[in-house]
């Protein structure tokens, strides 16, 4: 490499904005919101990295919406701070909000405006250039599939379309962080599927925080879960880690050819099975067994192989071995009950 090239590279590295090197998209530090004696959010601490899709879970009244409102600058925290892409929400809210697109639980829309006027207003609020506004509105309308509705008044739209317009306005200006509060609430199954597809397609370009009561939706979309209870964060991990961490009774379900007596005798010889249940299978000639494991599947040797060979050696072939980790619903109920 030439000396001048090295020099140029050094200069170009120096002039890159600080944000370029910053991989943390959002940091909440000791974030607290108190209404009188009620603490809606209690000293929340978490950092969200660029590209993550984070699910915020919690029962009604757990503090999800309050947290989202604080993250977006809609309400000020009683104490603590929010840093969005290097900008402190309390000190420089305008800069911090430039990086955020927010879809509240009830999309804030002006009933007397057309879809186009509403989106144009948001484009102006986001200080998009005159030439850029129309192309940006075209882009988001196409993305959420409301191009045919652009001239319709908001008051004439169905709940599903209003939700889409809310989503479109959150996407205007392509903010890096999307915060979506119950984006599928009140939608019919087809609309829920469409919204889920849309969120999946947005994963590539945006960091997303999504709250939902539909746990299947969260588990299919999110790479990380934050679970809240009474304003506190009670879990913060990936759905898989959460499943393993709460797999206290991690189990295997087996269907084995042979009588219940024979199967029980064979499995009793396998080490590392503290608990065993065997019953007759609905399939004639087979038995169904549920085996509790010590420490789960990830620790030490895979016990499935041991069980398989023990059964095979006793001429009791296993036609099905299935891990039965607790579902997200079970973990959610366990954590928030």
């Amino acid at each position: 490499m030439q000396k001048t090239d090295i020099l140029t590279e050094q200069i170009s590295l120096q002039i890159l904005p600080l944000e370029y090197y910053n991989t943390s998209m959002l940091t909440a530090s000791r974030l607290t919101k108190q209404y009188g004696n009620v603490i809606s959010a209690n000293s929340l601490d978490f950092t969200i990295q660029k590209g993550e899709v984070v699910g915020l879970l919690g029962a009604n009244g757990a503090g999800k919406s309050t947290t989202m409102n604080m993250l977006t600058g809609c309400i000020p925290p009683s104490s603590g701070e929010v840093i969005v892409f290097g900008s402190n929400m309390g000190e420089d809210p305008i800069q911090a909000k430039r990086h955020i697109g927010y879809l509240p639980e009830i999309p804030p829309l002006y009933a007397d405006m057309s879809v186009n006027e509403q989106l144009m207003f948001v484009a102006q609020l986001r200080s998009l250039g005159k030439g850029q506004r129309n192309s940006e509105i075209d882009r988001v309308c196409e993305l959420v599939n409301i191009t045919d509705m652009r001239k319709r008044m908001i008051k004439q739209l169905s709940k599903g379309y209003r939700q889409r317009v809310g989503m479109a306005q959150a996407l205007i200006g392509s903010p890096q962080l999307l915060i979506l509060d119950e984006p599928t609430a009140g939608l019919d199954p087809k609309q829920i599927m469409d919204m889920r597809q849309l969120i999946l397609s947005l994963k590539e370009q945006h960091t997303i925080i999504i709250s939902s009561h539909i746990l299947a939706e969260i588990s299919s979309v999110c790479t990380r879960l934050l679970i809240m209870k009474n304003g506190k964060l009670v879990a913060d991990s990936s759905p898989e880690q959460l499943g393993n961490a709460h797999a206290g009774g991690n189990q295997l379900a087996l269907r084995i050819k042979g009588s219940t007596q024979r199967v029980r005798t064979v499995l009793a010889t396998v080490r590392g099975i503290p608990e065993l249940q065997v019953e007759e299978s609905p399939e004639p000639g087979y038995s169904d067994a549920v085996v509790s494991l010590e420490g789960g599947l990830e620790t030490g040797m895979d016990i499935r192989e041991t069980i398989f060979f023990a059964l095979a050696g006793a001429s009791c072939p296993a036609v099905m071995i299935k891990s039965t980790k607790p579902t997200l619903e079970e973990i959610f109920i366990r954590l928030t009950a």
Partner: protein
Amino acid sequence: MRAVYIKELRAYFTSMIGYIYLSVFLLISGYIFSTGNLMSQNGDIKTYFASIFSIVIFLVPILTMRLFSEERKLRTLQLLFSMPVSIGGIVVGKFLATLSVFCMGLAVTLLYPLILAWFGPVEGMVVLGNYFGMILLVSACIAIGLFISALTENQIIAAVLSYSVLLALWLLDSAGQDIVKGLPGKFVSYLSLNTHYREFTYGIFNPAGIVFFLTLTALFLVFSIMVIDGRKTA
């Protein structure tokens, strides 16, 4: 601020309030000018401006009542709060849009001094003073109405409260003279809108009057910002 200004200006003419306000204002203005000046063969524009104010304090609350009440009721403030725009920008944008609608109506009344000039001499400074005074006065009225609109979700309550406060500020003048005597009376009179407005109608540009109206406007805009900032709710 510009985005909020344009949106508010458009909202006046999509919700009919703008058309209704302008129609009523111009109808009553035309009636007062015709009877007070043309039919009475009176070339003094002061007559028109002295009468129109009582109409203006009744009409301004119609323009201001929905400014924040509606946003709070429809929960659209949440959109503004989540956008990269300051609360000061939102308040000033709404204020300027309302003042613009008022000025649209007032601009049409510029025909009146021209009509009077057709019949005889018109004092330029008196005309200018009346228009300048009216704009300053209405700015203060709009700022008060805007503040009251930020206090309630109910538009009717906002309108009635605004009208009551403006009427009280107008009547403080006579209260200062007739009810409260001495130094307190002078102080009460000083707070009256009428006291400061009257000088403008004579073509006198008293800096005290200008400062009074500008201070009142700025004060209530700041109060509005504080109320909206404090009313951020989940």
